[in-house]
């Protein structure tokens, strides 16, 4: 309607007059829309009869709010936006000199992560640090690692994998079963779990080599569900839905253990007070090391021919074949490498929880990991780490927001709104930055200067 009036005529016709007119239209539309929704409400009276409750006051309030909102937006909001745009256009294109933080983002980030447990212990004491190191630190870093692993498949090779959690499950069960039955050490089983997950990655890769896009997504989704259902139903081995408990803890390379009863318990060796926080802090540094290892390998691989071939595969598979690249092995290595990191993360998860059950490996986990990759910006490690902090940290912090009970009443449990907020955050980020936090791509080689490639040129891949 009037919304398509051009900005030039805005300034000519009195803006206030136009704002009033638009406010009136908005009020009429709101009235028409809400007269039945809000104005009338069906209810049951004491005799169980259906009655109509009339709520004209509420309706009037809604309509007035709509009209006033439209008036303010058209009368003041739009001109302000126009002015801001004009100022921006008139100003000379300021050369975006990267600030100190953005230039040293990685160094600052890693330093902060290394110092995080120390700072927490210093702030809230050893016992108080449990929650912050475990629920926030370890939880977020597991997702960072998983997302970085999936990033190889989705972000670099452009193969949409909706069943990534299957490899996480393979790694977790590999450690849980071999650790409980054979008593093998975590340090032996970590690479074994990675290798096993990689093998499953190749097994998944073979049938889906010819699939692309939506079809690939569906088949990987099914693969994730198959692994979960096998775990549930193969009771003799996996103990079904009851899960496996009593998974051995990680030792400090066999030198110190974190079981209070052991003779080489860390407290006894180092002559410090008994506390469960040591194990959590150790696990924190372990997952940090694993995550950084993932990042290191990813960065290294991107500069190697195989990494370039992955990205080329995402850009154009046919051109890849015309250049003599074996797309079969290239895809399989992407699946295997991504799955391997999923397996590492899985075995860490089993060691941390001491208990695994199929409930931890539902499709929602795959979806969250994929959402982190997409939100962070496919292919960008920094962006993905930030997305994991925002998404996982954000949902964890909801548990801490007790003051919301004062606002919404004592029945309000913020955790229940986790998914709602997750979804809203995704929608907002996608509107604001359609290619994720970091949409641009760092080139892997350069002649004169390294310039980030704008997201408008990179492709998402077709499967």
């Amino acid at each position, binding site marked *: 309607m009037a919304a398509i009036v051009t900005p030039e005529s805005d300034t000519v016709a009195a803006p206030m007059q136009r704002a009033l007119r638009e406010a009136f239209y908005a009020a009429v539309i709101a009235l028409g829309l809400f007269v039945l929704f809000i104005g009338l409400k069906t209810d049951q009276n004491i005799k169980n009869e259906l009655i109509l409750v009339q709520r004209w006051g509420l309706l009037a309030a809604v309509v007035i709010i709509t009209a006033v909102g439209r008036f303010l937006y058209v009368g003041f909001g739009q001109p302000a936006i126009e002015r801001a745009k004009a100022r921006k256009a008139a100003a000379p294109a300021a050369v975006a000199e990267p600030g100190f933080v953005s230039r040293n983002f990685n160094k600052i980030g890693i330093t902060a992560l290394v110092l995080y447990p120390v700072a927490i212990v210093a702030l809230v004491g050893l016992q108080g640090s449990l929650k912050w190191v475990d629920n926030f630190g370890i939880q977020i870093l597991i997702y960072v690692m998983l997302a970085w692993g999936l990033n190889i498949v989705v972000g670099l090779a452009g193969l949409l994998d909706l069943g990534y959690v299957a490899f996480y499950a393979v790694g977790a069960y590999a450690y849980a079963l071999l650790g409980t039955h054979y008593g093998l050490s975590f340090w032996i089983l970590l690479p074994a779990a990675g290798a096993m997950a990689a093998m499953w990655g190749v097994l998944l890769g073979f049938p889906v080599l010819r699939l692309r896009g939506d079809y690939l997504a569906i088949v990987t989704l099914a693969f994730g569900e198959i692994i979960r259902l096998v775990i549930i139903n193969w009771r003799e081995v996996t103990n079904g839905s009851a899960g496996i408990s009593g998974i051995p803890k990680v030792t400090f390379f066999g030198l110190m253990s974190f079981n209070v009863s052991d003779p080489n318990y860390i407290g006894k060796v180092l002559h410090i007070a008994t506390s469960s926080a040591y194990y959590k802090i150790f696990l924190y540094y372990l997952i940090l090391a694993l995550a950084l290892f993932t990042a290191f*390998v990813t960065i*290294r*691989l991107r500069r*190697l*021919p*195989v990494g*370039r*071939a992955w*990205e*080329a595969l*995402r*850009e*154009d598979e*046919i*051109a*890849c*074949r*015309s*250049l*003599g*690249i*074996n*797309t079969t092995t290239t895809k399989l*290595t992407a699946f295997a490498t991504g799955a391997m990191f999923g397996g590492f993360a899985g075995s860490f998860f089993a060691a941390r929880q001491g208990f695994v059950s199929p409930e931890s490996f539902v499709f929602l986990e795959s979806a969250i990991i994929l959402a982190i990759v997409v939100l962070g910006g496919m292919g960008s490690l920094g962006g993905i780490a930030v997305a994991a902090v925002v998404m996982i940290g954000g949902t964890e912090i909801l548990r801490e927001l007790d003051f919301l009970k004062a606002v919404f009443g004592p029945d309000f449990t913020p955790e229940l709104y986790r998914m709602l907020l997750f979804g809203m955050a995704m929608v907002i980020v996608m509107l604001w930055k359609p290619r994720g936090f970091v949409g641009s*791509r760092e*080139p*892997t*080689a*350069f*002649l*004169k*200067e*390294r*310039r980030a*490639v*704008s997201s*408008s*040129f*990179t*492709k998402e891949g077709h499967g």
Partner: protein
Amino acid sequence: MNANPPINDAILQVEHLSMKFGGLVAIGDLSFRAKRGEITALIGPNGAGKTTVFNCITGFYKPSEGMITLNRSDGSSFLLERLPNHEIPARAKVARTFQNIRLFSGMTLLENLLVAQHNKLMKASGYTVLGLFGFSSYRKVSAESVDLAKHWLEKANLVDRADDPAGDLPYGAQRRLEIARAMCTGPELLCLDEPAAGLNPKESLALNELLMDIKNNSGTSILLIEHDMSVVMQISDHVVVLEYGRKISDGDPKTVRTDPRVIAAYLGVDDEEVETVLTEVGDEEVIEQLDTGPDSAHGPGNSASMLAGPVSDTVGHSNGGERVTVEKGAGKADRSGPRAPDERQSTDKSGGRK
């Protein structure tokens, strides 16, 4: 023309190649050879099956019948129809470009050329394992590959934009980059699918120079599909003309240009009318040729294949006005003497004649 040259003189031999899609015969019993160190052009009206021939040669299609032999300069030869798709560039050293440009648009120019050297780099990086630990042997080969990329960027006149994304380049530069990328695979045969399509005259000239440079200095033979006759006639040494999937003429550019079948194909007249048309316009040379019967060296007439026969039975024989319009501008560009079809065209055509 090429009366039984020694086998190794030909880098590519296509023998009795047929490609059928269901009932549609896209290529019927096609045989030709491309000589080493020459530029061979494959021309024909739209829908003649030129790109299908390319797809058969580069392994994107598996031909229904026939044999495609590639003889490398080291004496080895490959049957391309038996090699898997990705091994044709890797082992038989055949590189190609695409009619609709297929660059890695989100990667920089340099990265595009490095991806092209994938197999060499992969071997040097010990299939990733050695490279992951940063062995110096890989670093050396990696530096060499950057030098090779730089060499071809210079040839393609793109070195200033080496660090820009490929998708950011103008169209003509993208065409040149695609050729440079194909050359980075170190091919012995370079197949170019309409490299001059969409280029302006200046870019077209630059392309000619690039192709002549490749031919003269890199020892790579070129097989070329092109509609732009100025490119074909200027640079090609040998021309093969297709119509409805069959070869109708084969020879050096001059011979092909005067071949009545080619003229008929490009003007879109029925085969029976060719003689009439040519007699009308009074081209004595052609009439003389026609009197002696169709050239027995080529054309479907002498084919041994069961596919021989009136092609119009298998492929709809429409007089596409489109075919004529494509070639109108192209045909006039480099005519060295008065030829029949021009007389039938409007007068503005004759301006292009010398």
